[in-house]
């Protein structure tokens, strides 16, 4: 791949949200969680395929043993995947509202100083922070369930 001659361009720059608005942070996180999820999905399909090998479950149990041999890394990894799925899904709802239905961005206005873009306005912020809160709560619950065996609803 040819080196990009532009100043501070590339993957790291595109994912670097420091100094910017919260929506840019959510873009970076959405992208990172998306990559985590697609990697997990492809591996998960191979893993689930073991359920179809034979009827005694030997292949499936062997696969599970390999995963269990990772120790706490297995559950921590699953916890990260769970958090990624929660955030990517919740933020995805916000993005569908923005992109497909044009909601949360406001209407064209006459700019009056001091400027405050409506696309980054109150509605957008409420939704972002609500998403963040809900995702954190569910992620903690997922952590308690996976890592400590707590939070099971009988």
């Amino acid at each position, binding site marked *: 791949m040819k080196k990009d001659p532009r100043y501070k361009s590339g993957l790291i720059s595109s994912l670097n949200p420091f100094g910017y608005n919260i929506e840019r942070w959510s873009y970076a996180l959405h992208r990172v969680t998306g990559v985590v999820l697609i990697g997990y999905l492809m591996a998960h399909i191979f893993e689930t*395929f073991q359920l179809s090998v034979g009827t005694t479950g030997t292949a499936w149990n062997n696969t599970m043993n390999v995963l269990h041999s990772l120790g706490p890394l297995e559950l921590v990894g699953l916890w990260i995947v769970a958090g990624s799925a929660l955030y990517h899904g919740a933020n995805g709802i916000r993005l569908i509202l923005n992109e497909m239905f044009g909601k949360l961005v406001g209407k064209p206005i006459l700019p009056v100083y001091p400027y405050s873009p409506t696309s980054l306005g109150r509605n957008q912020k409420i939704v972002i922070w609500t998403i963040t809160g809900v995702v954190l709560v569910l992620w903690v619950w997922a952590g308690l369930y996976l890592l400590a065996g707590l939070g099971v609803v009988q």
Partner: protein
Amino acid sequence: MKESWSMILTYITAMVLIFVLTFHFLLQGPLAGKSFEDTLAFSYSRGNLVSFEVIFGLLLYTAILHGLNGLRVIALEWFHPEKKAWLLNLIVVALMAFFLALGSYTLIMVG
């Protein structure tokens, strides 16, 4: 094919995925009434696939279409191929076909 159609597919699969993935988490998670280790048992996992074959089929197809389309977008932005965009699309479609085939095979054999 216009890019808007692939994005419409992304949006629709996203909306469906929210429901089917939530269902998957409910079956494999704390609302199943079991510990996580118990949900990994062969009989339980296989039983779920048999009982909810249609939902898991929907989950497979929407997840692969949504995920690999996302990967295609990232690759398109990162590599921005001027003349070989068709090659990138071909690779993604091939990957989609492979994983859909593998997943469909699993569902059919288990069912």
